[in-house]
């Protein structure tokens, strides 16, 4: 039996004080306690990228982060991108360019792309492919995914 601990998490601008098991991952707590189910659980060992979120401005894997170790950090999930009912430009571009089939990998793809664009606002298509190589899409829709990211950049720059 393990001892629950209180952790204060800053998620999408809101503060949550939660009682969690020390072994629980941030992914589990986001999905099961905060009902933020946009972040997906694929492999649960850091390989597939479907749980990618942004913590303190950097892409990380929620499945490899312990919730108790995530206090005093600014956490952004896919649910935090929409503003006043308007989708973030990457989200809109994935829809417009049909950068998804089943959609399971899409939140991770978008969060990884967002972290890339924060570092490098004008990446080449090769930069995008390299940066997204840690996000697996089992529908094999990589061409349209990269196209969607390029399209979001064009929208931002126009």
């Amino acid at each position, binding site marked *: 039996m393990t001892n629950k601990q209180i952790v204060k998490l800053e998620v999408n601008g809101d503060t949550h004080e939660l009682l969690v098991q020390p072994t629980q991952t941030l992914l589990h707590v986001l999905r099961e306690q905060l009902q933020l189910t946009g972040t997906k659980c694929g492999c649960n060992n850091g390989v597939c990228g479907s749980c990618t979120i942004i913590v303190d401005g950097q*892409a990380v894997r929620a499945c490899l*982060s312990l919730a108790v170790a995530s206090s005093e950090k600014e956490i952004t999930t896919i649910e935090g991108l929409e503003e006043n009912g308007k989708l973030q430009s990457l989200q809109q571009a994935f829809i417009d360019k049909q950068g998804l089939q089943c959609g399971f990998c899409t939140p991770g793809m978008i969060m990884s792309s967002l972290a890339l664009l924060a570092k490098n606002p004008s990446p080449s298509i090769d930069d995008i492919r390299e940066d997204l190589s840690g996000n697996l899409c089992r529908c094999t829709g990589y061409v349209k995914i990269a196209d969607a990211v390029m399209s979001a950049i064009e929208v931002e720059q126009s």
Partner: protein
Amino acid sequence: MKYIEALSLQEALEILAGDDEARCLAGGATLVAMMNADLIAPSTLISLRRIEELKGISAVDNYIRIGAMNTHSDVANAEQLLSGNAFVIRDAARQIAHPAIRNMGTIGGSICHADPASDFPGSLVAANAELEIIGTDGLRQIPVQDFFVDYLETSLQEGEVLTAILVPTTHSQAHGRHLKFSRTHGDYATVSVSLVLSMQSDVCNYARVAIGSVAPTPLHLDTVDNILTGSKLNDDVLDDAANLLQEACDPIDDVRGSAEYRRKIIPGLLKRAIAEALG
């Protein structure tokens, strides 16, 4: 399981001394994955994330000191590691897995895990790095090759914590390269070559080569360094070096390649790494 954020090395050492089943948590990229898979169940996790001595990259005496808690991204972007024998470590860091993993995993955590297929061990041997380790008896400093004992096994003793990687600044004009052959982008290496070379006109006057993923620990042979040093690195010399490495290696068959395949990759990868280091 208990989770404690140690505020000092002293506190971490005290918890480790009192609990055999306690484990240190660095970036979590491997440890949390192992916990998720029920491969390990520590009684206590001691997070090292608040300990200042484990952070930062700085020049100390004749070394570049890389704190154990630097992430792979920190190392891959470190300006202090742009040249000389230290560059091979930076070159390895940027090739580890993918951006989100590089933002989480730490150099200290990675080498304490001692996976022979990972990128840092060979690069640290090639850079001739030393490790700073703290225990209740104080600090000790050892050559990095004395740290790697066997597959997933190091010479870190119970109750000790790896605090820093020390890179001697003895070969500031040297060229470095970490070249990995892997099945797909971001995978562990099927074989990796890490090397540091210095040239005086067209003669090599310093060489240090380590091969990863072909033995339980990074493969380094003095005989290989010796035949490269003083040579013009022509094909005959490189063939001899590759032969020695092929004879001494002890690869395994696994999903990334058969032992025989790994052995066959060594010569081509070695030659390419040398050409790229000097190119």
